[in-house]
């Protein structure tokens, strides 16, 4: 079985986001970038399945600018066998990314495609489901547990009401929740070894996919600020404030 894992390079989750003054976007210059956190879970799960002898190859793919390659390199360092970097000049919408990934799936013929359930930059939560639609494959989103069976997967999904379990026939798309597993750190020897693993570069324009932008970003602004609060000295004071000042209890 072959697993394709899609990863995205985003601003690190610990970075305090700053909005550009001209309203055109957020500051990314000299800002720490990392792999989108749930994409790390996607890689980890693929590696665990391979370690359990149920997968033969893991291919990591990213769609992004030149430096997005770092994300693929990191995936190689924790256990992916080879990488694909689809180069684009600017950020694409999930619809365009899903079309590019479809081309990669057609080329690679994986049995499973894993990726994070949501990217923490645009918070769209679309790409996996869109890819599943383009391929007419089943989708198991927000996965917190995956059991690999003969020709199917049993996936436990985190939903609003609690947990839901579905069975999807392979080939299938799985989008991963942060609780799926605990991503490992790459060891130094594995980081060195990863440098020798191949990363194929493909230009998005060679794939013959319409990546035009359909959504105009008119303005990016800071959210309204909350007015500064106060510290209370005691529980008694807190309850009085909630009762008589805020009038919420």
């Amino acid at each position, binding site marked *: 079985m072959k697993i394709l894992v899609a990863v995205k390079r985003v601003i690190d*989750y610990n970075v305090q986001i700053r909005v550009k003054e001209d309203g055109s976007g957020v500051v990314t210059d000299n800002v720490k970038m990392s792999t989108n956190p749930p994409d790390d879970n996607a890689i980890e799960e693929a590696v665990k399945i391979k370690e359990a002898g149920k997968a033969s190859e893991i291919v990591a793919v990213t769609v992004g600018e030149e430096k997005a390659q770092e994300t693929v390199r990191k995936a190689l360092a924790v256990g992916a066998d080879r990488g694909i970097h689809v180069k684009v000049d600017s950020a694409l919408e999930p*619809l365009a990314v899903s079309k590019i990934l479809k081309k990669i799936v057609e080329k690679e013929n994986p049995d499973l495609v894993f990726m994070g359930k949501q990217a923490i930059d645009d*918070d769209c939560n679309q790409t996996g489901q869109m890819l599943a639609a383009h391929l007419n494959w*089943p989708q198991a*989103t927000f996965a917190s547990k995956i059991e690999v069976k003969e020709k199917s997967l049993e996936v436990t999904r985190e939903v609003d*009401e609690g947990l839901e379990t579905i069975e999807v026939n392979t080939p299938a798309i799985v989008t991963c929740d942060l609780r799926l597993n605990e991503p490992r750190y790459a060891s130094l020897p594995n980081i060195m070894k990863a440098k020798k693993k191949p990363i194929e570069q493909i230009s998005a324009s060679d794939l013959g996919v319409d990546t035009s932008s359909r959504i105009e970003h008119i303005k990016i602004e800071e959210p309204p600020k909350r007015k500064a609060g106060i510290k209370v000295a005691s529980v008694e004071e807190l309850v009085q404030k909630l009762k008589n000042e805020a009038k919420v209890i």
Partner: protein
Amino acid sequence: MSVLLIAEHNNKELKSFTLNAITAASQIDQDLHVLLMGHNADNVAKSLSEVPLVKKVLHMDNEIYENYIAENYTSGILKHAEKYSHIVCSANTFGKNLMPRIAALLDISQVSDIIKVIAPDTFLRPIYAGNAFATVKSNDNKKCITIRPTSFEAAETTGGTAEIEKVDAAEKNENTKFVSREEIKSDRPELGTARIVISGGRGLQSGENFKLITDVADKLNAAIGASRAAVDAGYITNEHQVGQTGKVVVPDLYIAVGISGAIQHLAGMKESKVIVAINKDGEAPIFSVADYGLEADLFEALPQFLEELNKLNTIQK
């Protein structure tokens, strides 16, 4: 223009977030139709028809819709998509799972998680865990939109007399099967719609200690939330998680106990009307969004808090 909204329900009753989505959808266009896909869900169809903002209910009844499988829903929705300028649903796990599959097959770039309708093609949506707001304009001919339910009031539920039209089901998808659902039943208010939410974090130190939270929740008739750290540590189950990848809540009162206030948690609660933080670390980021901060050991403060609440003559429910 007309809008098609996909209803979320459990075949017995409508999920309350659908009512918030109805309000947002009606701001896009008054000609609002709701598609109800379910099995033996006539009562849900009837209650939808009584929502004054709803102009028509399309009712697709088939056993394949008994459980919500995105693949089955999608083919049913696509049968009707052509007639509508907008297809919308709520941005909870239901809509997040479903809408992109529809959008991709219609070759539409979806607008996710809107918090404001500026014009029928222009919306406000949070990005970067709510640390920036984007005003976006969709240039597709048709729009696929998910709506952050807590950013819109729930629609009125009585007085309407919309027509209910029975429509045919689509074909079944054989590749996805429902297996089971673990739904945690609770008499408490729902986290997404509760007037008061009290949440615990890693500071609670164990699942047993969450009893300190539940005691206060009982007194205030509050819903119980949790930080991701508390859920990851196994103190409480996932459906309580508030944050960027959990639930977004906007209660009148949010009480954060033993929660440091990571960006990802703030994303889920910082629009609450009044925020209280109880934390022994005075430097914790949660204090930066709190209206009332109490720097204290929660193991002392929570029992005292309950005691003070018991002293009050009346408590708003």
